[in-house]
């Protein structure tokens, strides 16, 4: 396959420029999921909230921790993890789900990827309400470091788009990958420090965090929410992930973009 870098780059640029369309598609998708329910997307927040509060108190007890310290930690971590996990899982079906569009007319497919990231960000916004409640209960300080949540989320967004494109591409050709990704993420949730802190892992298992990109994605959102600045190492790892991810995606997408309609 001859790479068409200009086509791939134009796809991302035009896709982003079509924000009116993906904004609407993402919004409609959320409304569709919760149609005719009274509290809408807050259902996700409610179930996540109950999960966090119940688990938070039980496990704080189990590990002899102060609930006022453990609960905000668990909550912020779960929100960040949830955002990342749903983006990755929905990334696998982004093109498969968009088949009716893709087979109808040419358009920048990345539009569908922007839409996935956008609608998960909206859900995250709803879930943030849980954290606000928890933060009030536990007196989590609001500091200048809290503002770092903005670049943290920016990293999630920028990386979410390439992840959606790359996984969407691979999964439309190899349908097993979706299942593999879902299973791996399930395991990763228990290995990545979300339910427990990095320090509890000890030095030997520290590798599970230091080179675990998922951990750093969680960390750059979680730490600012808790009023702390994430470590420089986290930003560095994410910068590397962003550069490598986008490069790999452009290389692959420029070769196989045109095959997507054939694979669906």
């Amino acid at each position, binding site marked *: 396959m001859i790479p068409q870098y200009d086509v791939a780059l134009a796809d991302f640029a035009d896709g982003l420029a079509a924000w*009116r369309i993906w904004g*609407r598609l993402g919004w409609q998708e959320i409304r569709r999921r919760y149609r005719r329910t009274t509290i809408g997307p807050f259902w996700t927040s409610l179930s996540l909230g109950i999960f966090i509060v119940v688990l938070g108190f039980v496990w704080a007890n189990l590990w002899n921790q102060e609930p006022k310290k453990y609960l905000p930690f668990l909550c912020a971590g779960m929100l960040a993890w949830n955002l990342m996990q749903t983006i990755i899982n929905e990334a696998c079906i982004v093109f498969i789900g968009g088949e009716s569009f*893709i087979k*109808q*007319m040419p358009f920048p497919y990345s539009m569908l990827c922007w839409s996935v990231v956008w609608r998960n960000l909206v859900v995250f916004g709803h879930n943030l309400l849980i954290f606000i409640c928890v933060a009030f209960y536990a007196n989590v300080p609001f500091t200048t470091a809290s503002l770092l949540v903005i670049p943290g989320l920016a990293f999630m967004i920028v990386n979410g788009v390439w992840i959606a494109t790359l996984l969407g591409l691979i999964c439309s050709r190899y349908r097993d990958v979706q299942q593999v990704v879902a299973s791996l993420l399930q395991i990763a949730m228990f290995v990545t420090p979300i339910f427990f802190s990095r320090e509890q892992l000890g030095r030997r298992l520290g590798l599970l965090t230091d080179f675990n990109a998922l951990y750093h994605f969680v960390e750059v959102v979680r730490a600012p929410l808790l009023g702390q600045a994430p470590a420089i190492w986290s930003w560095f790892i994410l910068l590397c992930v962003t550069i490598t991810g986008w490069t790999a995606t452009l290389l692959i997408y420029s070769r196989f973009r045109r095959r997507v309609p*054939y694979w669906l």
Partner: protein
Amino acid sequence: MASIVVEDITVDFPIYGSQKSFRKALFSRAVGGFIRRDGPHQNRIAVRALENVSLKLGHGDRLGLLGHNGAGKSTLLRVLAGVYVPTSGRVLIDGRVSPLFNTSPGLDPDDTGYENIVTCGMFLGMTRDEIIRKSSEIAEFSELGDYINLPVRTYSTGMVTRLGFAIATAIDPEIVLLDEGLAAGDARFAERAKQRADALIDRSSILVIASHSEALIRLWCNRALLLDGGQVVMAGGVDEVIDAYSRSSAR
């Protein structure tokens, strides 16, 4: 000025995940396209949907695509729409293409008619102002009345068809690609749909339509192309190609 140039295109559809026995079954059977082995070890299966097709269209051309089921008409339309990039050969298209295939992109049964007009319209490349300007006309043509503010799932089949057709034909196109079956409905609607399609075609620079209906092609087209098994059998005037098509059907 709109133009379409297609140079010697071939389209192969890969088939993945077919079981061994299924593959054998496929080989022993003849369908529309040619099923062939492909790849370095002859281990991939592909259906050849189009082979060495060339054509050239300019302003004012109205091309009718004729052929039996599986001849490659819809695939050719989708290549012209830019959906499929051909396996080999070149396609050069100048002008805004409006593909009017069977489904309306993004039509959501849970949304109201009005919301669907906005979503589909945006996807078809209309600006928000354009949609708002045209929405009352769309609503009027589809005869939805107050239903326009109700979810589409409450509509009758005919109403959905009318709505989809009205949205799709509200655009100001340069190149119109029509797959037959877009305008189905009761007799009265068929007559109104024809008028609206006439107006759309008049506004357009180039029309390509795939149809089994000789009457429709005689009515709308000034050129025709006969496809069989993915290859061009004949290209030329409407009457001669239709004659060839009828002869091949009679055989």
